[in-house]
Protein backbone atom coordinates (compact mmCIF):
# COMPACT_ATOMS: atom_id res chain seq x y z
CA UNK A 1 0.00 0.00 0.00
CA UNK A 2 2.80 2.38 0.96
CA UNK A 3 4.55 1.42 -2.27
CA UNK A 4 1.54 2.43 -4.28
CA UNK A 5 1.21 5.75 -2.46
CA UNK A 6 4.91 6.36 -2.95
CA UNK A 7 4.63 5.68 -6.67
CA UNK A 8 1.57 7.89 -6.82
CA UNK A 9 3.66 10.78 -5.50
CA UNK A 10 6.42 10.08 -8.04
CA UNK A 11 3.73 9.86 -10.71
CA UNK A 12 2.24 13.20 -9.75
CA UNK A 13 5.70 14.79 -9.79
CA UNK A 14 6.38 13.40 -13.26
CA UNK A 15 2.82 14.34 -14.21
CA UNK A 16 3.53 17.93 -13.16
CA UNK A 17 6.54 18.06 -15.47
CA UNK A 18 4.59 16.54 -18.35
CA UNK A 19 1.64 18.88 -17.76
CA UNK A 20 3.90 21.93 -17.99
CA UNK A 21 5.15 20.69 -21.34
CA UNK A 22 1.82 19.41 -22.64
CA UNK A 23 -0.08 22.67 -22.01
CA UNK A 24 2.42 24.43 -24.28
CA UNK A 25 2.33 21.74 -26.98
CA UNK A 26 -1.46 21.74 -26.88
CA UNK A 27 -1.79 25.53 -27.05
CA UNK A 28 0.71 25.81 -29.89
CA UNK A 29 -1.15 23.12 -31.79
CA UNK A 30 -4.48 24.84 -31.16
CA UNK A 31 -3.28 28.21 -32.45
CA UNK A 32 -0.65 27.29 -35.06
CA UNK A 33 -1.79 23.79 -36.09
CA UNK A 34 1.54 22.02 -35.89
CA UNK A 35 3.19 19.62 -33.47
CA UNK A 36 6.08 21.52 -31.93
CA UNK A 37 8.94 19.02 -31.85
CA UNK A 38 11.41 21.45 -30.31
CA UNK A 39 9.36 21.64 -27.13
CA UNK A 40 11.46 19.02 -25.33
CA UNK A 41 14.61 20.94 -26.13
CA UNK A 42 12.93 24.13 -24.94
CA UNK A 43 12.72 22.31 -21.60
CA UNK A 44 16.41 21.37 -21.75
CA UNK A 45 17.54 24.88 -22.68
CA UNK A 46 15.39 26.34 -19.89
CA UNK A 47 16.94 24.01 -17.34
CA UNK A 48 20.46 25.02 -18.39
CA UNK A 49 19.61 28.73 -18.47
CA UNK A 50 18.46 28.33 -14.87
CA UNK A 51 21.72 26.55 -14.02
CA UNK A 52 23.83 29.37 -15.44
CA UNK A 53 21.73 31.94 -13.65
CA UNK A 54 22.08 30.40 -10.20
CA UNK A 55 25.78 29.64 -10.59
CA UNK A 56 26.48 33.17 -11.85
CA UNK A 57 24.83 34.74 -8.82
CA UNK A 58 25.50 31.96 -6.31
CA UNK A 59 21.81 31.40 -5.65
CA UNK A 60 19.96 28.34 -4.40
CA UNK A 61 18.33 25.80 -6.79
CA UNK A 62 14.83 27.22 -6.93
CA UNK A 63 16.03 30.54 -8.34
CA UNK A 64 16.59 28.60 -11.57
CA UNK A 65 12.81 28.54 -12.05
CA UNK A 66 12.07 32.24 -12.67
CA UNK A 67 15.24 32.57 -14.75
CA UNK A 68 14.28 29.60 -16.96
CA UNK A 69 10.69 30.78 -17.36
CA UNK A 70 11.61 34.34 -18.35
CA UNK A 71 14.50 33.20 -20.51
CA UNK A 72 12.44 30.62 -22.41
CA UNK A 73 9.51 32.99 -22.90
CA UNK A 74 11.87 35.44 -24.63
CA UNK A 75 13.67 32.74 -26.63
CA UNK A 76 10.38 31.12 -27.74
CA UNK A 77 9.11 34.44 -29.10
CA UNK A 78 12.47 35.07 -30.76
CA UNK A 79 12.51 31.64 -32.46
CA UNK A 80 8.95 32.14 -33.63
CA UNK A 81 9.77 35.52 -35.12
CA UNK A 82 12.92 34.43 -36.95
CA UNK A 83 11.87 30.94 -38.04
CA UNK A 84 8.25 29.84 -37.65
CA UNK A 85 6.70 33.16 -38.60
CA UNK A 86 8.32 33.12 -42.02
CA UNK A 87 6.80 29.75 -42.89
CA UNK A 88 3.48 30.28 -41.10
CA UNK A 89 1.47 30.28 -44.33
CA UNK A 90 2.97 27.08 -45.71
CA UNK A 91 1.77 23.62 -44.71
CA UNK A 92 1.77 22.29 -41.14
CA UNK A 93 4.21 19.53 -42.11
CA UNK A 94 6.80 22.13 -43.09
CA UNK A 95 6.46 23.77 -39.69
CA UNK A 96 6.73 20.38 -38.02
CA UNK A 97 9.98 19.55 -39.84
CA UNK A 98 11.33 23.03 -39.11
CA UNK A 99 10.63 22.52 -35.42
CA UNK A 100 12.43 19.18 -35.61
CA UNK A 101 15.43 21.02 -37.04
CA UNK A 102 15.16 23.62 -34.29
CA UNK A 103 15.17 20.78 -31.74
CA UNK A 104 18.50 19.53 -33.13
CA UNK A 105 19.96 23.05 -33.17
CA UNK A 106 19.00 23.71 -29.56
CA UNK A 107 20.30 20.35 -28.35
CA UNK A 108 23.65 20.87 -30.07
CA UNK A 109 23.82 24.39 -28.69
CA UNK A 110 23.29 23.09 -25.16
CA UNK A 111 26.05 20.51 -25.66
CA UNK A 112 28.37 23.15 -27.09
CA UNK A 113 27.85 25.61 -24.24
CA UNK A 114 27.38 23.37 -21.22
CA UNK A 115 29.00 20.10 -22.31
CA UNK A 116 27.41 16.68 -22.41
CA UNK A 117 28.07 15.54 -18.85
CA UNK A 118 25.39 15.25 -16.17
CA UNK A 119 25.06 18.34 -14.01
CA UNK A 120 22.98 19.20 -10.95
CA UNK A 121 21.55 22.37 -9.44
CA UNK A 122 22.74 21.49 -5.94
CA UNK A 123 25.12 18.83 -4.73
CA UNK A 124 24.25 16.56 -1.85
CA UNK A 125 21.13 14.63 -0.99
CA UNK A 126 17.89 16.13 0.17
CA UNK A 127 16.44 14.20 3.10
CA UNK A 128 12.76 13.36 2.69
CA UNK A 129 10.12 13.83 5.32
CA UNK A 130 8.87 10.56 6.74
CA UNK A 131 5.09 10.73 6.91
CA UNK A 132 4.15 8.27 9.65
CA UNK A 133 0.45 9.04 9.34
CA UNK A 134 0.68 7.80 5.74
CA UNK A 135 2.24 4.45 6.56
CA UNK A 136 5.75 5.82 6.66
CA UNK A 137 5.61 7.20 3.14
CA UNK A 138 8.48 9.51 2.28
CA UNK A 139 8.07 12.90 0.62
CA UNK A 140 10.95 15.08 -0.52
CA UNK A 141 10.40 18.82 0.00
CA UNK A 142 11.43 19.42 -3.64
CA UNK A 143 8.70 17.06 -4.82
CA UNK A 144 6.10 18.91 -2.78
CA UNK A 145 7.28 22.20 -4.27
CA UNK A 146 7.16 20.84 -7.82
CA UNK A 147 3.55 19.78 -7.32
CA UNK A 148 2.49 23.00 -5.60
CA UNK A 149 4.18 25.30 -8.11
CA UNK A 150 2.66 23.32 -11.01
CA UNK A 151 -0.74 23.69 -9.42
CA UNK A 152 -0.15 27.44 -9.12
CA UNK A 153 0.98 27.73 -12.75
CA UNK A 154 -2.01 25.71 -13.97
CA UNK A 155 -4.32 27.97 -11.96
CA UNK A 156 -2.58 30.99 -13.51
CA UNK A 157 -3.08 29.65 -17.03
CA UNK A 158 -6.72 28.91 -16.21
CA UNK A 159 -7.33 32.46 -14.97
CA UNK A 160 -5.57 33.88 -18.01
CA UNK A 161 -7.67 31.79 -20.43
CA UNK A 162 -11.01 32.50 -18.75
CA UNK A 163 -10.68 36.00 -17.27
CA UNK A 164 -8.58 38.06 -19.66
CA UNK A 165 -9.52 39.38 -23.07
CA UNK A 166 -6.33 38.04 -24.61
CA UNK A 167 -6.85 34.63 -23.03
CA UNK A 168 -10.38 34.41 -24.37
CA UNK A 169 -9.06 35.51 -27.77
CA UNK A 170 -6.57 32.64 -27.60
CA UNK A 171 -9.39 30.15 -27.01
CA UNK A 172 -11.39 31.81 -29.76
CA UNK A 173 -8.53 31.47 -32.25
CA UNK A 174 -8.03 27.86 -31.27
CA UNK A 175 -11.77 27.29 -31.82
CA UNK A 176 -12.20 29.00 -35.16
CA UNK A 177 -9.32 30.75 -36.87
CA UNK A 178 -11.39 32.24 -39.70
CA UNK A 179 -14.02 33.70 -37.40
CA UNK A 180 -11.29 35.19 -35.18
CA UNK A 181 -9.91 36.93 -38.26
CA UNK A 182 -13.37 38.20 -39.22
CA UNK A 183 -13.93 39.48 -35.66
CA UNK A 184 -10.75 41.53 -35.84
CA UNK A 185 -8.80 39.52 -33.25
CA UNK A 186 -5.10 40.37 -33.82
CA UNK A 187 -3.66 36.96 -34.68
CA UNK A 188 0.02 37.86 -34.40
CA UNK A 189 -0.38 39.21 -30.90
CA UNK A 190 -2.24 36.09 -29.77
CA UNK A 191 0.48 33.92 -31.35
CA UNK A 192 3.16 35.87 -29.47
CA UNK A 193 1.39 35.36 -26.14
CA UNK A 194 1.03 31.65 -26.95
CA UNK A 195 4.80 31.40 -27.28
CA UNK A 196 5.38 33.39 -24.10
CA UNK A 197 3.21 30.96 -22.12
CA UNK A 198 4.42 27.84 -23.93
CA UNK A 199 8.06 28.88 -23.53
CA UNK A 200 7.73 29.83 -19.87
CA UNK A 201 6.00 26.56 -18.99
CA UNK A 202 8.60 24.56 -20.92
CA UNK A 203 11.28 26.37 -18.91
CA UNK A 204 9.48 25.43 -15.71
CA UNK A 205 9.24 21.80 -16.83
CA UNK A 206 12.99 21.76 -17.50
CA UNK A 207 13.83 23.13 -14.06
CA UNK A 208 11.45 20.64 -12.40
CA UNK A 209 13.19 17.80 -14.23
CA UNK A 210 16.59 19.18 -13.28
CA UNK A 211 15.63 19.52 -9.63
CA UNK A 212 14.05 16.08 -9.53
CA UNK A 213 17.00 14.33 -11.15
CA UNK A 214 19.85 15.95 -13.08
CA UNK A 215 20.60 18.10 -16.10
CA UNK A 216 21.60 16.43 -19.33
CA UNK A 217 21.46 17.64 -22.97
CA UNK A 218 18.87 15.01 -23.93
CA UNK A 219 16.70 15.38 -20.81
CA UNK A 220 14.00 17.26 -22.71
CA UNK A 221 14.16 15.23 -25.89
CA UNK A 222 13.55 11.99 -24.00
CA UNK A 223 10.61 13.64 -22.21
CA UNK A 224 9.02 14.81 -25.47
CA UNK A 225 7.26 11.51 -26.17
CA UNK A 226 5.36 11.39 -22.86
CA UNK A 227 4.61 15.12 -23.26
CA UNK A 228 3.04 14.45 -26.66
CA UNK A 229 1.25 11.43 -25.23
CA UNK A 230 -0.21 13.67 -22.51
CA UNK A 231 -1.30 16.33 -25.00
CA UNK A 232 -2.92 13.73 -27.29
CA UNK A 233 -4.56 11.91 -24.40
CA UNK A 234 -6.16 15.13 -23.21
CA UNK A 235 -7.29 16.10 -26.70
CA UNK A 236 -4.71 18.15 -28.56
CA UNK A 237 -5.48 21.85 -28.73
CA UNK A 238 -7.21 21.70 -25.34
CA UNK A 239 -4.97 23.02 -22.56
CA UNK A 240 -7.28 21.63 -19.87
CA UNK A 241 -7.06 18.19 -21.39
CA UNK A 242 -3.28 18.49 -21.21
CA UNK A 243 -3.49 18.68 -17.40
CA UNK A 244 -5.54 15.49 -17.17
CA UNK A 245 -3.35 13.83 -19.80
CA UNK A 246 -0.13 14.81 -18.05
CA UNK A 247 -1.26 13.43 -14.71
CA UNK A 248 -2.62 10.19 -16.19
CA UNK A 249 0.56 9.54 -18.19
CA UNK A 250 2.83 10.47 -15.27
CA UNK A 251 1.05 8.25 -12.77
CA UNK A 252 0.75 5.37 -15.26
CA UNK A 253 4.45 5.52 -16.05
CA UNK A 254 5.46 5.35 -12.39
CA UNK A 255 2.84 2.76 -11.45
CA UNK A 256 3.99 0.50 -14.28
CA UNK A 257 7.23 -0.11 -12.38
CA UNK A 258 5.23 -2.30 -10.01
CA UNK A 259 4.74 -4.75 -12.86
CA UNK A 260 7.48 -4.21 -15.42
CA UNK A 261 11.08 -2.94 -15.35
CA UNK A 262 11.49 0.84 -15.02
CA UNK A 263 13.27 1.00 -18.38
CA UNK A 264 9.89 0.49 -20.05
CA UNK A 265 8.39 3.68 -18.63
CA UNK A 266 8.51 5.56 -21.96
CA UNK A 267 6.95 2.53 -23.64
CA UNK A 268 3.99 2.84 -21.26
CA UNK A 269 3.44 6.43 -22.39
CA UNK A 270 3.76 5.35 -25.99
CA UNK A 271 1.32 2.47 -25.51
CA UNK A 272 -1.27 4.77 -23.93
CA UNK A 273 -0.83 7.26 -26.77
CA UNK A 274 -1.24 4.61 -29.48
CA UNK A 275 -4.20 3.07 -27.67
CA UNK A 276 -5.84 6.45 -27.39
CA UNK A 277 -5.26 7.24 -31.06
CA UNK A 278 -6.94 3.97 -32.01
CA UNK A 279 -9.86 4.10 -29.57
CA UNK A 280 -10.60 7.79 -29.21
CA UNK A 281 -8.35 9.91 -31.46
CA UNK A 282 -10.05 13.14 -30.38
CA UNK A 283 -8.75 12.69 -26.82
CA UNK A 284 -10.57 12.61 -23.48
CA UNK A 285 -11.79 16.13 -24.09
CA UNK A 286 -12.69 16.62 -27.71
CA UNK A 287 -9.58 18.07 -29.34
CA UNK A 288 -9.16 20.09 -32.50
CA UNK A 289 -8.13 17.25 -34.81
Amino acid sequence: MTDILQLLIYGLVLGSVLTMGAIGVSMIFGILRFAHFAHGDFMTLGAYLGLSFISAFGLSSWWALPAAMVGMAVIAVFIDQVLYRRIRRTQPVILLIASFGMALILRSLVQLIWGSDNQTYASGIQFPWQLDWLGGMRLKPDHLWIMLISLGLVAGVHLFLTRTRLGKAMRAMSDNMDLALVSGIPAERVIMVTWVIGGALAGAAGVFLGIDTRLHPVMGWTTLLPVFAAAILGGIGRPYGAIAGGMIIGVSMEMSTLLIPAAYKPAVAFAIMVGMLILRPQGIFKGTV
Partner: protein
Amino acid sequence: MSSLLEAKGLYGGYGGADILQGTNLRVESDEIVVVVGPNGAGKSTAMKAIFGLLHIREGEVRYRGETITNAKPEQMVRRGIAYVPQEKNVFPSLTVGENLEMGAYLMKGDLARRLDKVYTLFPKLAERRRQQAGLMSGGERQMVAMGRALMIDPQLLMLDEPTAGLSPLLIDETFERIQEINAQGIGVLMVEQNAKQALSIANRGYVLATGSNRYEDTGPNLLANPEVAEMFLGG
Protein backbone atom coordinates in the same frame (compact mmCIF):
# COMPACT_ATOMS: atom_id res chain seq x y z
CA MET B 1 -23.55 62.01 -50.84
CA SER B 2 -21.63 58.83 -51.39
CA SER B 3 -23.17 55.42 -50.84
CA LEU B 4 -22.51 53.40 -47.69
CA LEU B 5 -20.94 50.66 -49.78
CA GLU B 6 -20.22 50.55 -53.44
CA ALA B 7 -18.47 47.70 -55.23
CA LYS B 8 -17.72 48.24 -58.91
CA GLY B 9 -16.58 45.75 -61.52
CA LEU B 10 -15.11 43.17 -59.13
CA TYR B 11 -12.93 40.44 -60.61
CA GLY B 12 -11.32 37.84 -58.39
CA GLY B 13 -11.61 34.44 -56.75
CA TYR B 14 -9.73 31.83 -54.79
CA GLY B 15 -6.51 32.09 -56.78
CA GLY B 16 -7.48 30.10 -59.87
CA ALA B 17 -9.91 31.38 -62.47
CA ASP B 18 -11.92 34.46 -61.49
CA ILE B 19 -15.26 33.61 -59.94
CA LEU B 20 -16.34 37.24 -59.87
CA GLN B 21 -16.76 38.54 -63.40
CA GLY B 22 -17.38 42.22 -62.96
CA THR B 23 -19.79 42.11 -60.04
CA ASN B 24 -21.40 45.40 -58.97
CA LEU B 25 -23.13 45.96 -55.63
CA ARG B 26 -24.33 49.05 -53.82
CA VAL B 27 -25.84 49.58 -50.35
CA GLU B 28 -27.27 52.86 -49.02
CA SER B 29 -27.17 53.47 -45.30
CA ASP B 30 -30.86 52.79 -44.61
CA GLU B 31 -31.26 49.84 -46.95
CA ILE B 32 -31.62 46.10 -46.82
CA VAL B 33 -30.00 44.76 -49.98
CA VAL B 34 -30.39 41.12 -50.91
CA VAL B 35 -28.21 39.15 -53.30
CA VAL B 36 -29.81 36.05 -54.80
CA GLY B 37 -28.85 33.69 -57.58
CA PRO B 38 -28.15 30.05 -58.36
CA ASN B 39 -25.48 28.00 -56.61
CA GLY B 40 -22.00 28.91 -57.73
CA ALA B 41 -23.06 32.35 -58.91
CA GLY B 42 -20.41 33.95 -56.71
CA LYS B 43 -22.72 35.42 -54.06
CA SER B 44 -20.66 34.34 -51.06
CA THR B 45 -17.47 34.99 -52.98
CA ALA B 46 -18.55 38.58 -53.54
CA MET B 47 -19.19 39.03 -49.82
CA LYS B 48 -15.80 37.60 -48.89
CA ALA B 49 -14.04 39.71 -51.48
CA ILE B 50 -15.69 42.90 -50.26
CA PHE B 51 -14.73 42.08 -46.66
CA GLY B 52 -11.08 41.53 -47.60
CA LEU B 53 -11.04 37.76 -47.25
CA LEU B 54 -10.31 37.15 -50.92
CA HIS B 55 -8.07 39.03 -53.28
CA ILE B 56 -9.81 41.41 -55.66
CA ARG B 57 -7.78 41.38 -58.85
CA GLU B 58 -9.64 44.17 -60.54
CA GLY B 59 -12.36 46.56 -59.50
CA GLU B 60 -12.99 48.86 -56.59
CA VAL B 61 -14.76 48.76 -53.22
CA ARG B 62 -15.70 52.07 -51.64
CA TYR B 63 -17.10 52.58 -48.16
CA ARG B 64 -18.58 56.03 -47.52
CA GLY B 65 -16.56 57.28 -50.47
CA GLU B 66 -13.25 55.90 -49.19
CA THR B 67 -11.50 53.21 -51.23
CA ILE B 68 -11.13 50.02 -49.17
CA THR B 69 -10.34 47.52 -51.92
CA ASN B 70 -8.39 44.56 -50.47
CA ALA B 71 -8.12 46.12 -47.00
CA LYS B 72 -7.68 43.54 -44.22
CA PRO B 73 -10.74 42.28 -42.29
CA GLU B 74 -9.40 44.02 -39.18
CA GLN B 75 -9.55 47.34 -41.07
CA MET B 76 -13.13 46.59 -42.12
CA VAL B 77 -14.12 45.98 -38.50
CA ARG B 78 -12.46 49.22 -37.39
CA ARG B 79 -14.42 51.12 -40.05
CA GLY B 80 -17.71 49.68 -38.83
CA ILE B 81 -18.33 46.84 -41.25
CA ALA B 82 -19.38 43.54 -39.66
CA TYR B 83 -19.54 40.22 -41.45
CA VAL B 84 -21.26 36.98 -40.46
CA PRO B 85 -20.01 33.93 -42.37
CA GLN B 86 -22.50 31.28 -43.41
CA GLU B 87 -21.02 28.35 -41.54
CA LYS B 88 -18.92 27.97 -38.42
CA ASN B 89 -19.92 31.45 -37.33
CA VAL B 90 -19.58 31.01 -33.56
CA PHE B 91 -16.71 30.03 -31.24
CA PRO B 92 -18.11 26.69 -30.02
CA SER B 93 -16.10 26.27 -26.80
CA LEU B 94 -16.68 29.86 -25.69
CA THR B 95 -19.78 30.90 -23.80
CA VAL B 96 -22.39 33.11 -25.44
CA GLY B 97 -21.10 36.08 -23.44
CA GLU B 98 -17.51 35.38 -24.48
CA ASN B 99 -18.54 35.05 -28.11
CA LEU B 100 -20.09 38.50 -27.96
CA GLU B 101 -17.06 39.91 -26.17
CA MET B 102 -14.82 38.63 -28.97
CA GLY B 103 -16.93 40.56 -31.44
CA ALA B 104 -15.92 43.78 -29.69
CA TYR B 105 -12.25 42.82 -29.34
CA LEU B 106 -11.04 45.87 -31.23
CA MET B 107 -13.41 48.27 -29.48
CA LYS B 108 -11.87 49.72 -26.36
CA GLY B 109 -14.19 49.89 -23.35
CA ASP B 110 -17.94 50.24 -23.42
CA LEU B 111 -18.37 46.47 -23.24
CA ALA B 112 -21.36 46.54 -20.85
CA ARG B 113 -23.30 48.95 -23.06
CA ARG B 114 -22.57 46.93 -26.19
CA LEU B 115 -23.63 43.71 -24.49
CA ASP B 116 -26.81 45.38 -23.24
CA LYS B 117 -27.71 46.45 -26.74
CA VAL B 118 -27.33 42.94 -28.15
CA TYR B 119 -29.17 41.35 -25.21
CA THR B 120 -32.06 43.77 -25.75
CA LEU B 121 -32.32 42.67 -29.37
CA PHE B 122 -31.91 38.98 -28.51
CA PRO B 123 -33.31 38.46 -24.98
CA LYS B 124 -32.74 34.71 -25.31
CA LEU B 125 -28.99 35.28 -25.44
CA ALA B 126 -29.11 37.12 -22.11
CA GLU B 127 -30.67 34.07 -20.48
CA ARG B 128 -28.03 31.81 -21.97
CA ARG B 129 -24.99 34.03 -21.61
CA ARG B 130 -23.06 31.39 -19.67
CA GLN B 131 -23.88 28.52 -22.01
CA GLN B 132 -21.29 27.18 -24.45
CA ALA B 133 -22.19 28.34 -27.94
CA GLY B 134 -21.33 24.97 -29.47
CA LEU B 135 -24.08 23.30 -27.45
CA MET B 136 -26.86 25.55 -28.78
CA SER B 137 -29.37 24.89 -31.55
CA GLY B 138 -28.86 26.19 -35.06
CA GLY B 139 -31.25 29.07 -34.57
CA GLU B 140 -29.65 30.13 -31.31
CA ARG B 141 -26.20 29.92 -32.84
CA GLN B 142 -27.33 32.20 -35.64
CA MET B 143 -28.41 34.74 -33.01
CA VAL B 144 -25.01 34.48 -31.33
CA ALA B 145 -23.34 35.00 -34.69
CA MET B 146 -25.39 38.09 -35.48
CA GLY B 147 -24.97 39.36 -31.93
CA ARG B 148 -21.21 38.98 -32.22
CA ALA B 149 -21.21 41.06 -35.39
CA LEU B 150 -23.42 43.75 -33.84
CA MET B 151 -20.99 44.25 -30.94
CA ILE B 152 -18.98 46.77 -32.95
CA ASP B 153 -22.03 49.00 -33.53
CA PRO B 154 -21.62 48.49 -37.26
CA GLN B 155 -22.82 50.85 -39.97
CA LEU B 156 -22.98 47.95 -42.39
CA LEU B 157 -23.89 44.37 -41.55
CA MET B 158 -23.00 41.71 -44.10
CA LEU B 159 -24.83 38.39 -43.69
CA ASP B 160 -24.04 35.26 -45.68
CA GLU B 161 -27.18 33.10 -45.79
CA PRO B 162 -28.42 33.88 -42.27
CA THR B 163 -31.36 31.47 -42.57
CA ALA B 164 -29.50 28.45 -43.99
CA GLY B 165 -30.65 25.28 -42.28
CA LEU B 166 -33.27 26.96 -40.10
CA SER B 167 -36.90 25.89 -39.67
CA PRO B 168 -39.61 28.05 -41.32
CA LEU B 169 -40.57 29.53 -37.96
CA LEU B 170 -36.97 30.53 -37.21
CA ILE B 171 -36.54 31.88 -40.73
CA ASP B 172 -39.44 34.27 -40.11
CA GLU B 173 -37.96 35.31 -36.81
CA THR B 174 -34.51 35.88 -38.32
CA PHE B 175 -35.92 38.12 -41.05
CA GLU B 176 -37.85 40.07 -38.40
CA ARG B 177 -34.65 40.62 -36.43
CA ILE B 178 -32.84 41.75 -39.56
CA GLN B 179 -35.58 44.32 -40.14
CA GLU B 180 -35.24 45.51 -36.54
CA ILE B 181 -31.48 45.85 -36.95
CA ASN B 182 -32.01 47.80 -40.15
CA ALA B 183 -34.53 50.06 -38.38
CA GLN B 184 -31.70 51.14 -36.07
CA GLY B 185 -30.01 52.71 -39.08
CA ILE B 186 -27.70 49.82 -39.95
CA GLY B 187 -27.33 49.02 -43.64
CA VAL B 188 -27.73 45.31 -44.37
CA LEU B 189 -26.21 43.39 -47.26
CA MET B 190 -27.21 39.75 -47.32
CA VAL B 191 -26.91 36.71 -49.51
CA GLU B 192 -29.97 34.48 -49.33
CA GLN B 193 -31.26 31.16 -50.61
CA ASN B 194 -34.79 31.85 -49.40
CA ALA B 195 -35.01 34.32 -52.23
CA LYS B 196 -38.72 35.13 -52.21
CA GLN B 197 -38.92 35.84 -48.53
CA ALA B 198 -35.66 37.78 -48.48
CA LEU B 199 -36.65 39.93 -51.45
CA SER B 200 -39.97 40.71 -49.79
CA ILE B 201 -38.17 42.53 -46.95
CA ALA B 202 -35.48 44.01 -49.21
CA ASN B 203 -35.30 47.58 -50.46
CA ARG B 204 -33.32 46.41 -53.42
CA GLY B 205 -32.05 43.13 -54.76
CA TYR B 206 -29.43 41.78 -57.10
CA VAL B 207 -29.65 38.60 -59.10
CA LEU B 208 -26.16 37.23 -59.67
CA ALA B 209 -25.25 34.53 -62.18
CA THR B 210 -21.77 33.30 -63.10
CA GLY B 211 -20.17 36.11 -61.18
CA SER B 212 -21.88 39.06 -62.79
CA ASN B 213 -25.08 41.02 -62.33
CA ARG B 214 -28.07 39.64 -64.20
CA TYR B 215 -30.85 41.75 -62.72
CA GLU B 216 -30.93 44.67 -60.34
CA ASP B 217 -34.12 46.24 -59.06
CA THR B 218 -36.25 46.93 -56.03
CA GLY B 219 -37.30 43.88 -54.05
CA PRO B 220 -40.97 43.96 -55.15
CA ASN B 221 -40.03 44.50 -58.80
CA LEU B 222 -37.66 41.55 -58.82
CA LEU B 223 -40.35 39.40 -57.26
CA ALA B 224 -42.80 40.52 -59.91
CA ASN B 225 -40.37 40.01 -62.79
CA PRO B 226 -41.47 36.84 -64.61
CA GLU B 227 -38.00 36.09 -66.01
CA VAL B 228 -36.40 36.28 -62.57
CA ALA B 229 -39.19 34.18 -61.14
CA GLU B 230 -38.78 31.51 -63.77
CA MET B 231 -34.99 31.39 -63.72
CA PHE B 232 -34.12 31.82 -60.07
CA LEU B 233 -37.09 31.74 -57.79
CA GLY B 234 -38.40 28.36 -58.76
CA GLY B 235 -41.43 29.53 -60.82
